[in-house]
């Protein structure tokens, strides 16, 4: 059983990351035989919801295409309209092209900030996206116009090193580092004053890359730059800057993005089952995924048989929903590329809140661009069924306490923790205690988790566990073949306490697992 899981994982990896494979087999010999992958608390009972749930390393995988082959691609991910899109966008007789010759078709940006000021320089994390021609596409702070020469230099550095058949990775200085990521036809550059490792920062840039791909598809991106190297991509990305801004904000805050996992709304399993089966029943021919979110919590996810959603894609959906206020009132209908599923084509997402004032948001992902009304009806059917089976009220009640306090676990000196079940790709974490509720402290705590994570997952020197004792808190992290656990104790916590806390916590999670996790995911 365990061996099977591992074989499957290896095939996803496509063998490009030898050290990771090595790491994984070593982890299988972990000294906790009772907790091998698939039997840890939170592991799904039937089948996983996500593609390759433990795919932290996925983000750093190099070859997209090879991975696709390994997944045994279905026809689903190749909707034909991606090429339509290009025709529309690039065709000679469209408005954009004509207008652009005269004046362009663009909005000016409102993030004016003096890029030579100390304030600009001292931002915690800059992110730049540019084309291989060195044209600015995105900057987190300041305007692209003001930074066009800086981005030109960035591209020059990339190509200069490339000319030696070499690849530039990063530049390190006292107090900050610059990380480069080439994802043709884009180049992404991050400048960070955090203590994150290069690998972590690369991973974040990958997310930004996927965010852009999800807006345009890779096929379209490639097509555009093949035809016009000098193309100003901002024309196509206009209005999406806040998506990237928001994703960067999430990357600093959301443990899910760090853990390559998502968290669920705590819900009685009976209620969740009704919600899931109601969603399952409200199907349509073109539907691939039905996702119910409550803020940043996953309530349930129903998928077409044999189609898996990747957690990165799900996080992009979270980001899209969380960044757009316009879905609240009406019903949204938007093309979205799920790059981990298929970088070549668009899905079409019907996005609507169950009620304008509610946090419950339903996302119906379809392959058919014309299927809006059909999906709109699916939503109605779902709502009806939910009400008929009296689950809607239970769901709304659960929403009143979407989180739990760490006190419920009953471990002295324990302030906070993250627990990820590897096989299900889901994690659970209590709400932040008062000490970490300020923006600054929250970021600091996340920074500590980031540090632990990057140590545990070091490319060549991975660790089984870390205990870090500092002046403001004591931290512990532990990886086994089945789970990842990160704990934050008050500085009064001792090592003996930490050791007993781990056992106690694992027992507690086991006890609560059917409320905290989705144990029986459904398919249409």
């Amino acid at each position, binding site marked *: 059983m365990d061996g099977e899981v591992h074989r499957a994982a290896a095939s996803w990896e496509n063998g490009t990351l030898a050290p990771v494979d090595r790491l994984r087999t070593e982890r299988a010999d972990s000294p906790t035989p009772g907790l091998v992958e698939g039997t840890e608390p939170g592991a799904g009972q039937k089948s996983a919801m996500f593609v390759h749930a433990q795919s932290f390393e996925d983000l750093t995988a190099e070859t997209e295409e090879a991975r696709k082959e390994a997944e045994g691609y279905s026809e689903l991910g190749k909707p034909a309209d991606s090429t339509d899109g290009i025709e529309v966008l690039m065709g000679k007789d469209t408005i954009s092209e004509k207008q652009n010759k005269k004046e362009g078709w663009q909005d000016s940006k409102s993030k004016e900030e003096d890029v030579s000021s100390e304030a600009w320089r001292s931002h915690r994390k800059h992110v730049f996206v540019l084309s291989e021609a060195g044209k600015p596409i995105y900057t987190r702070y300041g305007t692209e116009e003001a930074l066009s020469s800086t981005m030109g230099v960035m591209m020059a550095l990339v190509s200069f090193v490339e000319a030696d058949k070499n690849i530039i990775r990063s530049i390190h200085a006292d107090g900050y580092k610059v990380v480069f990521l080439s994802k043709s036809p884009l180049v992404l550059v991050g400048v960070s004053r955090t203590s994150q490792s290069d690998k972590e920062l690369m991973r974040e840039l990958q997310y930004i890359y996927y965010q852009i791909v999800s807006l345009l598809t890779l096929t379209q991106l490639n097509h555009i730059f093949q035809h016009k190297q000098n193309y100003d991509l901002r024309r196509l990305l206009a209005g999406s800057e806040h998506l990237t801004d928001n994703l960067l904000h999430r990357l600093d805050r959301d443990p899910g993005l760090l853990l390559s996992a998502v968290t669920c709304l705590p819900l009685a399993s009976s209620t969740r089952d009704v919600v899931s089966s109601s969603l399952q029943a409200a199907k349509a021919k073109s539907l691939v995924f039905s996702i119910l979110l409550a803020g940043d919590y996953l309530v349930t996810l129903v998928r077409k048989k044999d189609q898996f959603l990747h957690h990165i894609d799900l996080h992009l959906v979270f980001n899209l929903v969380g960044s757009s206020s316009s879905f609240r009132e009406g019903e949204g209908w938007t093309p979205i590329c799920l790059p981990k599923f298929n970088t070549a084509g668009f899905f079409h997402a019907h996005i609507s809140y169950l009620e304008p004032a509610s946090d419950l948001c339903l996302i119906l992902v379809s392959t058919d661009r014309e299927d809006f009304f059909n999906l709109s009806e699916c939503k109605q059917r779902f709502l009806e069924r939910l009400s008929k089976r009296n689950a*809607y009220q239970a769901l709304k009640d659960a929403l009143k306490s979407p989180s739990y306090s760490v006190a419920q676990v009953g471990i002295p000196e324990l302030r906070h923790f993250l627990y990820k079940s590897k096989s299900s790709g889901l994690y659970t974490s209590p709400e932040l205690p008062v000490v970490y509720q300020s923006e600054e402290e929250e970021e600091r705590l996340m920074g500590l988790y980031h540090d632990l994570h990057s140590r545990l997952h070091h490319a060549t020197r991975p660790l089984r566990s870390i205990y870090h004792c500092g002046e403001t808190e004591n931290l512990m992290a532990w990886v086994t073949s089945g789970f990842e656990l990160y704990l934050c104790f008050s500085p009064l916590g001792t090592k003996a306490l930490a050791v007993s806390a781990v056992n106690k916590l694992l027992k507690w999670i086991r006890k609560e697992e059917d409320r905290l996790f989705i144990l029986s995911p459904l398919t249409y």
Partner: protein
Amino acid sequence: MSRKKAVKAKGSSKSPKPSPCSGRSGKGLAAAAAPSGGLVYPSRPSISNSGEFYDIAFKVMLVGDSGVGKTCLLVRFKDGAFLAGSFISTVGIDFRNKVLNIDALKVKLQIWDTAGQERFRSVTHAYYRDAHALLLLYDVTNKRSFDNIRAWLTEIHEYAQQDVVVMLLGNKADSTHDRVVKREEGEKLAKEFGVPFMETSAKSGLNVELAFTAVAKELKHRTTKEPDEPKFQLQEYVDKEMRTAGCCRS
């Protein structure tokens, strides 16, 4: 204005099965009674997704460059509120419904608020052909959005139905200081293409109601008119209404 919801779809399992409106159904119009008291009768033939009864439904699409205020205009019309401050960028298409009383009929406008950005063109194009009316907006403080109107009209011509109702709106008319497009320029362009025109302001509310009502009247008129009935004169109606409103306001 009736804004009362009779039945909440989610709350009642007995409510009639929602049927998405299917365009210009004129059925049941004869039975229409004036719902002056705001009470809605359960015998109504149709119910929208949001639970409001209606007699007749039309699809209206808001188009124009991004940032001209399409969403703001819609929110002002629907909720009477102005979205100040934050820049809201519509993703793809946003569908909302609003039921109006037009000459004793409940007319449901299914309003498609579209994203102005280029990358969504392919999606919005797909929905042009189902639209009965198009409100084409530009921003009087943004010359480029005005210049793009010709291109928009070409696009409308290409993708929309032949008899689609088009109305040109010069939005943000309240911003007197930043104005760069004169009212006369808008009028001239509208005349050239033979479409009705007015200036609006989502912020002050100027002509917002009127724009939607006028379109609804025109659509209703087209659908319900007897063969010998005279054609509804949209621009005339608009001009008249604006004059009355104008003198009341100032």
